[in-house]
């Protein structure tokens, strides 16, 4: 069939190189293009294929797997305690984490974990830019999931664009409705999984089914369902571009030695369509096929250089590499590269990746330091803790026979998962008599503390007048000794005895 003159240039334009389709994708979210008072231009990310896409599927599977399945993991702690491996138990003031069980007074473990997380984020950013944003940020992961669901119902980029332009037929209602329903399902399970971290998961699921769950569970389920649906399904790149403060901060965290997703302009320019049998001499490798723009979930053109909107998900690398394979040019026109190396390459030189930079060393050293402190604290973590609160009002009580009585509240924390028996005594206070409220009849009472609990004891220590004479300034330091009758281990806790200054 003869080709008319009008059709010929059109056909040439839709081919960037022989056999390579030229996408009509526009970088709708690039700052140069978007106009803020107009309606948001929808981004239709195309499916990418390649090692980074595979890596991202893997990261998604791991992160979502952890999030959705972790509450269902069981961990045997005996009959008295929850058998959920990870549980934030607010009513009982406990944080269960596998073998660890953090009491409120040990919250510094969580603080340390957060400090390490923050520093690790800084280190990762200094090393390779926004890897957090590109691979593991919940916004990215869930948006990726929502796009995958959307693609399942509506097809890839072009099919989705066609469907959006098409009139509302039954088919469109079916596909659009299916998409949103699936998004809602994803959102509900996201909200559900969140709540399961705070209450025994199987119990709570049953309560949800019977509509008997506590109101707060429904409230948080609703909040997380709404945010997942809105932020992951609807808002997507708008969250990263306009709402998130992190892109603004990250700019200060990487430098000219950080590996960033970059377009190698020195190799790509001058860009333009490549005709069959045309020489690659004197022109760039970029055939302007715009596949990098088509796959971009942020709606930008990486060839414009580094920009705030770019979450560095590396999908443009995959898209470009598959094109380079087709036109038989070397891969890596878009690749992880440093600003330093890009500048050197433009001058025909190379600049190797420099790892030993002050900020890298500083972050690594701080992470190591905090890690060591945490490990030491964890190692020395006691499973029996004794706190002594001395009465401050009154400081002491004079009794009718001239002796002086001091009052103490002794708290025994049993962090074991079994009942333990203790004996309480004093050391360093000559002539003292002990009276434990509730145990007056027993001369040397055995005090039992139920598993994983705290027992507060009121203790009166009385010194006769004769012993008081020996105290310097009426004050004496002494220890409470708490002995575990099971393994005869002891814990001592120092405090003071006070009497009037004579």
């Amino acid at each position, binding site marked *: 069939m003869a080709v008319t003159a009008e059709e010929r240039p059109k056909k040439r334009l839709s081919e960037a190189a022989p056999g390579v389709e030229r996408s009509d994708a526009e970088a709708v979210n690039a700052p140069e293009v978007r106009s803020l*008072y107009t*309606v*948001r231009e929808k981004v239709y990310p195309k499916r990418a294929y390649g090692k980074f896409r595979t890596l991202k599927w893997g990261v998604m599977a791991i992160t979502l797997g952890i999030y959705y399945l972790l509450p269902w993991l069981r961990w045997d702690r005996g009959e008295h305690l929850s058998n959920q491996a990870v549980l934030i138990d607010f009513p009982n003031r406990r944080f269960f984490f596998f073998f660890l069980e953090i009491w409120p007074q040990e919250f510094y473990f969580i603080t340390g974990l957060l400090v390490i997380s923050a520093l690790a984020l800084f280190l990762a950013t200094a090393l390779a830019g926004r890897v957090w944003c590109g691979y593991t940020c919940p916004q990215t992961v869930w948006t990726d999931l929502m796009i995958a669901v959307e693609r399942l119902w509506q097809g890839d980029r072009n099919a989705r664009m066609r469907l959006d332009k098409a009139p509302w037929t039954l088919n469109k209602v079916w596909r659009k409705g299916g998409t949103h329903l699936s998004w809602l399902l994803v959102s509900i399970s996201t909200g559900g999984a969140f709540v399961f971290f705070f209450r025994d998961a199987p119990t709570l699921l049953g309560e949800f089914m019977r509509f008997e769950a506590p109101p707060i569970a429904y409230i948080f389920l609703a909040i997380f369902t709404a945010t997942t649906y809105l932020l992951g399904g609807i808002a997507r790149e708008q969250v990263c571009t306009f709402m998130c403060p992190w892109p603004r901060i990250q700019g200060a965290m990487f430098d000219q030695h950080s590996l960033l997703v970059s377009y190698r302009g020195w190799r790509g320019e001058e860009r333009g369509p490549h005709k069959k049998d045309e020489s690659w001499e004197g022109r760039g490798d970029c055939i302007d096929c715009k596949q990098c723009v088509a796959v971009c979930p942020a709606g930008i053109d990486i060839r414009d250089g580094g920009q705030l909107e770019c979450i560095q998900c590396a999908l443009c690398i995959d898209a470009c590499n598959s094109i380079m394979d087709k036109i038989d040019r070397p891969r890596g026109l878009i690749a992880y590269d440093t600003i330093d190396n890009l500048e050197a390459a433009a001058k025909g030189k190379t600049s190797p990746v420099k790892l030993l930079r002050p900020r890298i060393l500083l972050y690594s050293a701080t992470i190591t330091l905090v890690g060591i402190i945490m490990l030491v604290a964890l190692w020395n973590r006691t499973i029996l803790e004794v706190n002594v609160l001395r009465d401050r009002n009154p400081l002491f*009580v004079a009794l*009718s026979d001239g002796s002086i009585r001091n009052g103490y509240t002794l708290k025994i924390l049993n962090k074991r998962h079994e009942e333990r028996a203790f004996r309480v005594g004093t050391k360093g206070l000559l002539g003292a008599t002990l009276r434990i409220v509730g145990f007056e009849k027993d001369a040397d009472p055995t005090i039992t503390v139920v598993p994983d609990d705290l027992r507060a004891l009121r203790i009166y220590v009385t010194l006769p007048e004769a012993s008081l004479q020996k105290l310097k300034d009426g004050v004496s330091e002494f220890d409470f000794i708490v002995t575990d009758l099971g393994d005869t281990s002891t814990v001592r806790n120092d405090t003071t005895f006070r009497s009037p200054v004579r």
Partner: protein
Amino acid sequence: MTKPEIDEITGVETTDHEWDGIKELNNPLPRWWLWVLYVSIIWSIGYWIVMPAWPLISSHTKGVIGYSQRLVVARSLEDAKQAQSVYLEKIAAADPAAIKADPELLRFSLAGGEAAFGDNCAPCHGRGAQGSTGYPNLNDDNWLWGGTLEDIHQTLKVGIRSTHEDTRVNPMPAFGRDKILEPAQISDVTEFVLSISGSEATAEAATRGKAIFAEQCSACHGEGGKGNMELGAPNLTDRIWLYGGDKAAITQTIRNSRAGVMPAWEGRLSPETLKQLAVYVHSLGGGQ
């Protein structure tokens, strides 16, 4: 109005504000964000109608659902009372000893008693019930009117020298002011009292004082000065002195007498509160 200046590089309007040659661009908000603002404005109009919002001259618009933070407080106080009523009913039915024996009621009473003590008793007895001159320390093992639960409960109810018809009274004559004893005799009795409480005293004067004590004081304070809780007569042989145990203070007490006052709390505090207070005071360390 002048035409807005357009920045050459970005093509965006400037606000005409300039700092060191840098001009502020008038970048607009994204449209969806603008819609959030409009929706918030509409929301606020709904809020004015539904919730208390606008100040008027002596009041304010009430809103159609009648929400008020005062009501919320009143309701939560009501709820707290409701939750307490379970315990309070049991306390009303039990005597203090039974309350002390029940761990649940004991815990509730100690908390309630502490609060009531802070509100009503702390001004005289101190926040820690440690007392001061003239106001007994409630932590120690020394009691004027008895330290059992029942005694403490009774003292709380009727007070001392109060307006209650069954009030506790422990009148002591003002031996000096009313000229019952001569100053020298008072001095002798003082020496005797010092001697029986283990303080330094002149033996000769104490011997003279002993006879006077047997005649004038032992009716209430007992032969050996051990006191009598039935009458509220303090034990003079121990080391605790409500009004001071030195010679000057004891002389003063004998000369002018003392008349401490405690209000009767029956009628002012609920019977349940009085029981909780009795349990609390009894548990301070000196209860018998």
